[in-house]
């Protein structure tokens, strides 16, 4: 995006803003929507926006992975679960009294945390940005993954294996075992 | 699993005779072997053991059975039973490997009767058995055969549609071939809806 064309920065900026807004709007839909299926759509939207931000952070691989894993796998799995578990829409909390208090609490907690962190970000002392020694190419990631971080890689793969087996066991056992 | 092999006509007659004796009705078992198709049977209502009388309206008919000879009729054995005996006869035929062919009615308006005709065929032989029973025309009621032959279910629903005969114990007698709101019975002779 650093070609010498005059308007390129502006264009990039616009696209950046759009991505960021998409992400935030998606996230808002995801937590606010009454229908759970719309929440999932919001999540997918959020992921696409986030993928855009990743692209601006010079890691297109992550951007694509974000879409592949979140939209292509996570969201679809969630929708599938929604179809299985909720053939009919659940009535979202309607009883007003306790709900209002709970909502206010949630808002309060979120606001406090947000305010604290945001202050930290804006006012906090930051080290000066450093120049990178290399571009984060896929090859570099791959090499690092299998050398420096091989332990983490193995651990994650074991975790995933356990998750698959566990998911199978739970979903299968839930059928007959519970009584 | 596969239906038992077909009984011979003699065996069938014997079985019916035994059954008729068992129900201790004034039974008539007759055979008209070797005679030509009997033109009077069923409709003409000539009396005599060969073609027994269907009882007059209101009065129970006498159960009887016989072997039918001659190709014209298209069936080989017929029996007339009382409405209450239909299920038993059905079971008797079921045990001998018969399959349900059809259930239908005939409206004898002049005699004030409804006739129920049950056809049975044997899957692995040519044997065809007809069982009839007569009920009064108004308020006709027959026990359902669908517990013995589940296939009778639809035939009985259809017969109920067309004749208004009520099959007691039938799971569902709602209109079948007729529209859902039908309150008429088109095959009764006094129905004049058809062109």
């Amino acid at each position, binding site marked *: 995006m650093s*070609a010498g*064309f005059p*308007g*390129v920065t502006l*264009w990039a900026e616009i696209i950046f803003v759009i991505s960021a807004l998409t992400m935030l709007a998606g996230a808002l839909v995801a937590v606010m929507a009454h*229908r759970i*299926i*719309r929440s999932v*759509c919001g999540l*997918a939207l959020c992921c696409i926006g986030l993928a855009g931000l990743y692209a601006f952070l010079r890691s*297109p*691989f992550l951007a*694509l*992975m974000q*879409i*592949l894993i979140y*939209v*292509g*796998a996570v*969201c*679809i*799995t969630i*929708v*599938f679960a929604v*179809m299985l578990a909720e053939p009919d829409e659940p009535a979202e909390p309607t009883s007003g009294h306790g709900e209002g208090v709970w909502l206010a609490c949630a808002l309060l907690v979120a606001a406090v945390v947000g305010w604290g962190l945001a202050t930290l970000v804006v006012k906090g002392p930051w080290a000066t940005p450093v120049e990178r020694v290399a571009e984060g*190419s*896929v090859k570099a990631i791959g090499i690092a993954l299998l050398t420096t971080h091989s332990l983490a890689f193995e651990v994650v793969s074991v975790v995933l294996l356990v998750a698959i087996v566990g998911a199978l066991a739970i979903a299968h056992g839930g059928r007959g075992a519970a009584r | 699993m596969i239906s038992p092999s077909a009984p011979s006509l003699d065996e069938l007659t014997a079985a019916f005779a035994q059954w008729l004796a068992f129900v201790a009705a004034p039974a008539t078992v007759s055979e008209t072997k070797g005679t030509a198709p009997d033109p009077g049977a069923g409709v003409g209502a000539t009396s005599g053991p060969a073609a027994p009388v269907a009882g007059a309206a209101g009065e129970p008919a006498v159960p009887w059975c016989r072997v039918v000879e001659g190709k014209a009729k298209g069936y080989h054995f017929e029996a007339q039973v009382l409405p209450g005996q239909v299920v038993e006869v059905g079971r008797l035929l079921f045990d001998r490997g018969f399959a349900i062919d059809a259930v239908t009615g005939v409206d004898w308006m002049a005699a004030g009767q409804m006739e129920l005709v049950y056809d049975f065929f044997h899957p692995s032989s040519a044997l065809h058995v007809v069982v009839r029973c007569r009920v009064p025309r108004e308020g006709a009621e027959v026990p359902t055969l669908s517990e013995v032959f589940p296939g009778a279910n639809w035939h009985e629903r259809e017969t109920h549609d067309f004749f208004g005969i009520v099959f007691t114990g039938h799971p569902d007698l709602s209109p079948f071939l007729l529209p859902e709101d039908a309150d008429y019975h088109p095959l009764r002779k006094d129905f004049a809806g058809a062109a």
Partner: protein
Amino acid sequence: MTLPEPFRLLAYLAGVMAFVGLNAAYLVWVERKGAARFQRRPGPTEVGPAGLLQPLADAAKLLSKQLLVPPDADRTLFRLAPVMVMAPALMCLATIPFGQALGARSLDLGLVMVFAFGSINVMAIMLGGWASRNKYAIISAARIVSQNVAYEIPMMLVVITLLMVTGTTNLQEIVEGQAGGFWRWNVFDLVANPLMPVTFVIYFICMLAETNRAPFDMAEAESELVAGAFTEYAGMGFGVFFMAEYANILVGCSLGAILFLGGWQSPFGVFSGVGWFLLKLYALVFTVVWVRWTFPRTQFYGLLNLSWKILIPVSLGILVLTSVMLKLF
């Protein structure tokens, strides 16, 4: 290519869109003509010479139809789904290099990008089905998900096998690696993996399943589910789903041609060019049509069995075999 970068990109995107639109429309015509030939009848003949204007007539008909939204449907999602279904196919095609210098950008991650955007498509069809609130559509949506999840795995395994052979995810480079005669195409690269033709067949089967084509058209199995997820769609809403199906076939076949059949490389090593790519692409498309009009539909569990019990083990085996072969030689 003297145009400044953003304009070149835009121009290219417009070109791709036109290409997709034209192809989607005319693939319908190809399908109808092809089906007709397989069944020994003429197919569309009335609108234009040899029925060539038929797609326009179809489009005009679909456009003139009323857009109906069923009363129980989730209106937003119902309207959104057709839009969502077309976008990923366009994005994917934008990464496909048609010729040596005919490609949007030589993306290092082209292959990953195709799969990343390809996965959105499923989500769109599923949402369309779900939002219709129609029983057939919901059954169809549930089928689509399990089918796509099941076939994504062998597809990925096959593609990873191929990545091991080519050593790059850049589609341009993958094609360049196959330069020089048809024996250098990946599908005949028996040194890297003696089962390469099988790999190609697995890819093709997965591609059919991923694009919901017969004999794997569980989603819109017309004799079971009427029109599946699209049952409630009328007019152009349906038309867009229909076009997206063909756009996806186009993507799948392009990828097949690039990964296995040497993209724009000529089979004799000389006269390479975009023509060869199109030839291979349409040969694959023709095969897709041919398969559809030959076979009956698979049963749903048969389809899943095929994937889980045959394709995944086989493609895993091929993956292992390839890695061993690459290490040895």
